[in-house]
């Protein structure tokens, strides 16, 4: 199985990993008590992709609120991307946020500070 498809709940995001397209998408809030029950498999998927595939990997995020446990997990994922980027593999992040909620842009910005690969923070209005 190379596809990843996790349904979202009130406190966990919906997650889709498209192996062929090289796209990992996540939408929603993330505040589970134990984020590693959820993100462990996502981290594995990203590790495997970056190890086995040579094509680009793009993260398409529409994440809203993240608790600190989820922030730590997402940081681990972005660290993997950073490592791949330094080895020359093309990686990117597009983080889409509702323009009415600047907190999400600030959160994305704090992640971007530690990344040297292309990382876009894109407002949308409904």
């Amino acid at each position, binding site marked *: 199985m190379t596809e990843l498809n996790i349904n979202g709940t*009130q406190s966990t995001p919906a997650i889709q990993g498209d192996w062929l397209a090289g796209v990992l998408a996540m939408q929603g809030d993330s*505040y589970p*008590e134990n984020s590693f029950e959820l993100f462990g498999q996502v981290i594995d998927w990203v590790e495997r992709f970056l190890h086995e595939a040579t094509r680009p990997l793009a993260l398409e995020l529409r994440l809203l*609120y993240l*608790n600190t446990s989820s922030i*730590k997990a997402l940081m681990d994922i972005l660290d993997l991307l950073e490592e791949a980027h330094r080895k020359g593999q093309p990686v990117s992040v597009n983080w889409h946020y509702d323009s009415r*909620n600047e*907190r999400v842009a600030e959160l994305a910005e*704090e992640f971007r500070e530690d990344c040297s690969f292309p990382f876009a923070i894109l407002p949308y209005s409904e």
Partner: protein
Amino acid sequence: METYDLLAMRENYNRQRIMLCFNGPISRSLIEEIGNALRNYLTAEQAQPSAAMDVFAVYIEMTQNIRHYATRMNYAESDAAATVAISRDEQGRYVVAAGNLVEREDGRQLVEWVESLAPLDKAQLKAAYKEQLRKPRSGESASGAGLGLLDIARKSSVPLLASLSEQAEGRAFFSLRAVI
């Protein structure tokens, strides 16, 4: 049998402008349900999206810290309880407060740690937060609450207020208050 004076409780809550409060054993699903109620309340009050998100975030970090602590200490269900209150102060700012039973020594360390954050400005809090974020999970402070507390401190518009009241059997009631 003692009867509860619900009216006195209600008047007390109203006087303190408490919009939502909870006392008792707290489960994972209860945290979510109260969180929902809180979000609905904030929407109904037409709070700014950023303020609503900060209040919700502080509530989640406080209650999850309490759950993590009780789990780590193998507390019985009745000891894994929390007292939570969300209110507004005279200036209309949101106040999130939560308390729980802890081992006395852990409580002392927590209070000391929270007090050590008080003189830090936003930039220093951010630096401390980023440093904590990079620490391995096993390397967290004795309380295990480091990252969550720093996140709460960053969202609070005034320094966090922590207090400790000694209780029986080597325990103490730790309470924490943040103002958004």
